[in-house]
């Protein structure tokens, strides 16, 4: 049938979020009613997800990160070590330009160094969590299990990750107004292993919680905030607020686009509890 042929031709566009409006609706409507095309769609989705779960394929070495940090902090670029792909003439030209810029901009650079807050670069775990949040928000990382029941999500992770994921259910037990919604979860690749990704939303704004073992990821970098014996690391990454911390053998990253340090997102675990002493230090003062 021609409609099946047309739909199959458009499946990659659909899966890549390149179809909008009526075109997207037409593909979805056909997939609902045609088992054959729905089967092809499942295969394609499975195939593309397998590729997407491979990322990130490389992590920048710490030494490179440090050099680039110096560059973006305006401390002045250092000459490239033993230049392999840039000619000597280019290096000389680059150094001459850098020296000229340094002379012209030195008052500005001194001002910036004096006013810089003592933060270091975000950890790879925080960066992965922010990237995962963005990809899920764009529809590029569909959930593997959709449920609003914390118990169901916790059970789904059993035997899929080598740590126990126990999502709290403070919202139900507190009987308070429902401020957030648990949407579902999936596995995400991190350092040759799986991490747990849990998706929430609050007022239609997504909140992501990524969990892995503290033997795999250690929170580091960013602004350090101490609260009730825990050390939180706060980073602003691509306009997102990322809090990372370790507790009882697990490392967590909480990502949102909420205000200040995104501490409002802490209610996904702490709503209805008397945990203001935990959340208060995260607020800006």
């Amino acid at each position: 049938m021609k409609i099946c042929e047309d739909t199959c031709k458009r499946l990659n566009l659909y899966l890549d979020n390149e179809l909008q409006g009526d075109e997207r609706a037409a593909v979805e409507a056909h997939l609902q009613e045609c088992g054959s095309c729905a089967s092809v769609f499942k295969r394609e989705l499975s195939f593309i997800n397998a590729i997407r779960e491979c990322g990130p394929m490389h992590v920048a070495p710490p030494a490179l990160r440090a050099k680039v940090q110096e560059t973006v902090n305006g401390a002045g670029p250092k000459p490239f070590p033993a230049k392999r792909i840039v000619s000597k003439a280019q290096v000389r030209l680059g150094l001459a330009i850098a020296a000229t810029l340094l002379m012209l901009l030195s008052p500005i650079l001194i001002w910036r160094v004096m006013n810089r807050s003592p933060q270091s670069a975000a950890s790879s775990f925080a960066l992965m969590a922010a990237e995962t949040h963005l990809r899920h928000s764009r529809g590029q990382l569909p959930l593997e299990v959709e449920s609003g029941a914390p118990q169901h999500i916790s059970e789904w992770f059993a035997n899929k990750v080598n740590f126990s994921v126990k999502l709290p259910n403070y919202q139900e037990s507190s009987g308070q107004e429902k401020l957030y919604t648990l949407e579902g979860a999936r596995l995400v690749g991190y350092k040759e292993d799986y991490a747990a990704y849990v998706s929430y939303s609050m007022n239609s704004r997504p909140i992501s919680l990524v969990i892995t073992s503290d033997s795999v990821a250690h929170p580091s970098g960013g602004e350090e905030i101490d609260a009730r014996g825990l050390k939180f690391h706060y980073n602003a990454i691509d306009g997102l607020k990322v809090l990372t911390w370790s507790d009882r053998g697990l490392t967590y990253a909480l990502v949102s686009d909420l205000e200040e340090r995104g501490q409002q997102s802490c209610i996904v675990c702490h709503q209805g509890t008397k945990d203001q002493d935990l959340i208060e230090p995260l607020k800006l003062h």
Partner: protein
Amino acid sequence: MEDNMDSVAGDTLNQAALAHIDALFGYAMTLARDAAEAEDLVQETYLKATGAANQPPAGSNLKAWLFVIMRNAWLNHVRHDQSGPRFVELETNEQMDDSGGNPHVVYLRKLEQKQVREAIEKLPQAYREIVVLRDIEGFTYQEIAMVLDCPAGTVMSRLGRARAKLRASLATWQRISRARAV
């Protein structure tokens, strides 16, 4: 205006750019296939990106803009390299094994990430690049078209061929591993 260099926005921009270092290093590895060259390429990209005369266009995607800078830098090196072109373009009449209905694909989720990564690494340059840009880095077709400086239609067709080749490669790997297991 040089004053922009001193602004809070400029500082934030630089820090935001730093958040993409892993993605940029991954793309540099895709282009150069050598860790030392990839590191140089990342440094050069940031040096250019943080230069006062080189600011992202208003409203543009910062990550895509950084990738454009990196790709242009790489192409400049390739053009000036006396050892000849290293950026192998695709043959347009390449025979493709379009295994869209390949039943092995249903088992793909069970494959180890390692095998999928290896299959990506073995793709020809242009196919590997477009798979990384779309499926690993999550760029839209329009953003990829900007990075590769080609029409969005080319992105769509090249991505289709790249995925078909990757699918075929993984199906072959699975046939071999099954045969070994027997």
